[in-house]
């Protein structure tokens, strides 16, 4: 029997039970759509975050923070306000003037700056916003983050007066675009000092000297849209501390060898009480975290496809029993067993191909809908913690790689065929006389 006739026959059998075939196909569609949507969204998300990280922080910087071990304990200031209490259990404190020690460690270290941060509020007469108050040396910070620590209005002074603040774009604007503060405006900043007995709110009056350009997303150690910046000396005074949460180290180059050597020197210098992380390392860690999340999500989607596969098997067995007599006729007319097998597998291939194609299309549409919803700001994704930055809107562009496309297609058709193997084999093994006798 010719191949096109085998498929033609399979198709005529599918057409006979349209609803049933449709529901079976739907199972494949849902499974494939879930896989494609999840993969293209996580891929897009990963791209967005990677790009934002790469633009947010030069690869020639290290972040030093208290607490030994790799990427230890989320101490990079992400633990808002906890820094004052913070540090490692050993009682180790990272001090602002540890920068002097670090600067002297290697010729590969160009400079280093301390960062102090607390959560707090910024008030004007009309508005109040929750924010993260970050104390840095403006000139050095601008030097390290020359592309992101850039003002949109006002100016970033190299030698700021003590009562100068710079505010991030998202502190300054509501999501609907309402501008809250302007450069030159007098404001008050405030933080809750939990170390005082009794705990009390402390505040001081200041004025906005610059509003930052939008940074987008978040940056590991670098400027963030949801922070406000004050001079480091003011921060030490205001928060009454000589400790800092992190020290940002600027290197002469971003060679892996340089990074490794400097990391080792710093960690040794502080007897393992600090960790030093490069942005490349963070990218790698994020990359593997994403892989795990992706694997997990796709695993769940794959299970739904397996369920669809079992559905196919179930339907094929029912169909096989219903068509026993028909199979008997085909065999009596001289059809070979392997052609009967091919007819049944052909049905599953048709279901698999249609299901996979619709599933990929549907998954892609879903991914784009989700991406649009996320980007439009209906949902705010908190990227919080670890990277020393706070939440940001994510603009995700879903990505459908050829590999995902072909993989999803192959998986959809493959699952359909594999689960049809047993029923098809049983059909092919039917004995003509017995099959013809079947009522």
């Amino acid at each position, binding site marked *: 029997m*010719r191949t096109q006739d085998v498929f033609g026959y399979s198709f005529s059998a599918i057409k006979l039970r349209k609803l049933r075939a449709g529901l079976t196909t739907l199972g494949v569609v849902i499974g494939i759509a879930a896989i494609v949507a999840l993969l293209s969204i996580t891929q897009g998300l990963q791209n967005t975050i990677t790009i934002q990280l790469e633009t947010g922080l030069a690869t020639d910087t290290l972040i030093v923070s208290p607490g030994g071990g790799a990427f230890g304990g989320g101490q990079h200031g992400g633990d808002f306000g906890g820094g004052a209490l913070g540090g490692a259990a050993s009682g180790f404190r990272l001090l602002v003037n540890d920068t002097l020690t670090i600067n002297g460690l290697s010729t590969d270290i160009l400079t280093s700056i301390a960062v102090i941060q607390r959560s707090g509020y910024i008030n004007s007469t009309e508005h109040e916003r929750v924010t993260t108050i970050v104390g840095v040396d403006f000139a050095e910070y601008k030097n390290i983050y020359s592309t992101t620590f850039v003002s949109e209005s006002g100016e970033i002074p190299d030698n700021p007066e003590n009562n100068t603040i710079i505010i991030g774009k998202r502190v300054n604007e509501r999501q609907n675009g309402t501008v809250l503060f302007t450069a030159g405006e007098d404001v008050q900043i405030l933080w809750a000092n939990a170390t005082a007995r009794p705990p009390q709110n402390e505040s001081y009056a200041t004025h906005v000297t610059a509003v930052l350009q939008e940074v987008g997303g978040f940056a590991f150690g670098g400027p963030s849209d949801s922070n406000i910046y004050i001079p480091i000396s003011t921060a030490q005074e205001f928060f009454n501390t000589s400790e800092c949460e992190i020290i940002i180290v600027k290197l002469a180059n971003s060679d892996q060898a340089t990074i490794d050597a400097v990391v080792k020197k710093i960690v040794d210098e502080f007897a393992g009480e600090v960790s030093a992380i490069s942005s490349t390392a963070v990218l790698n860690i994020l990359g593997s975290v994403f892989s795990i999340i992706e694997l997990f999500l796709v695993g769940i989607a794959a299970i739904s496809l397996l369920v669809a596969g079992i559905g196919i098997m179930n339907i094929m067995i029912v169909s096989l029993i219903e068509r026993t*007599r028909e199979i008997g006729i085909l065999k009596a*007319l*001289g059809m070979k*067993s392997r052609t009967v097998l091919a007819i049944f597998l052909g049905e599953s291939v048709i279901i698999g191909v249609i299901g996979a194609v619709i599933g990929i299309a549907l998954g892609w549409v879903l991914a784009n809908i989700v991406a649009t919803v996320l980007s439009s700001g209906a949902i705010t994704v908190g990227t919080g913690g670890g990277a020393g930055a706070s939440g940001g809107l994510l603009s995700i562009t879903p990505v459908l790689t050829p590999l995902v496309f072909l993989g999803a297609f192959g998986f959809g058709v493959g699952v359909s065929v594999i689960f049809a193997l047993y029923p098809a084999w049983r059909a092919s093994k039917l004995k*003509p006389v017995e099959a013809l006798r079947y009522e």
Partner: protein
Amino acid sequence: MEIPKQIRNKIVAFMAPIVEAVNLKKTYMLGKIPVEALRGVNLKVESGDFLAVLGPSGSGKSTLLNLIGALDKPTAGTLLIDSFDVSTLKDNQLSDLRRRVGFVFQFFNLIPRFTAIDNVGLSLSIAGMGKAERKKRAKELLETVGLKDRMKHKPAELSGGQQQRVAIARALANNPRFLLMDEPTGNIDSKTAREIINLVKGLNEEKGVTIIMVTHDQHLAREAKRIVQIFDGVITSDIVNGEPT
């Protein structure tokens, strides 16, 4: 040039029989109880024969026909179809052999979702014929059995007699060595049955198609050239043109 019938029959007689059964046995197992359906059948069918098989219900007629049609394998004895020993054939070879046999069933066994022309075409398609050729041949066959104006009808839209004609056309599709008919008129009224028999008789006389037909209707059996009686799994009489052999 048409060869006169008498001469053709003589030529045919010199050729090897297309069916030869020697001490053919078939035993079914009903659980652990053996049921001897055929208990040593000896039969030779020559090309051009028109043979009616008569016998009471349960005597083994269908069993014999299924064996001759390569739908089943004998338990013991030899069965040569077209000089092939059925017992030695593999699954695939049996399929090939079935294509050279035209089987007509009591219950028509047409594919309900296919039209008359597609049902006939199915047989051709299984043999590997292309679509255009198939259509042409199926049309010719349906004309032969007198269904020229029913080609696009599905089985449910045809009378019993018409369905059986479609089945006969399908059985003839691949120019089989012989037609096997298991009570072809069992589900048809006697007037239509007579028409079917005339059709079959015509095929035998005019086209030289060899026919083995199971029936329990004495009158219809009389239309055949040869009548074989089966009782309880053995052949008890074999009469050719009214003469016992």
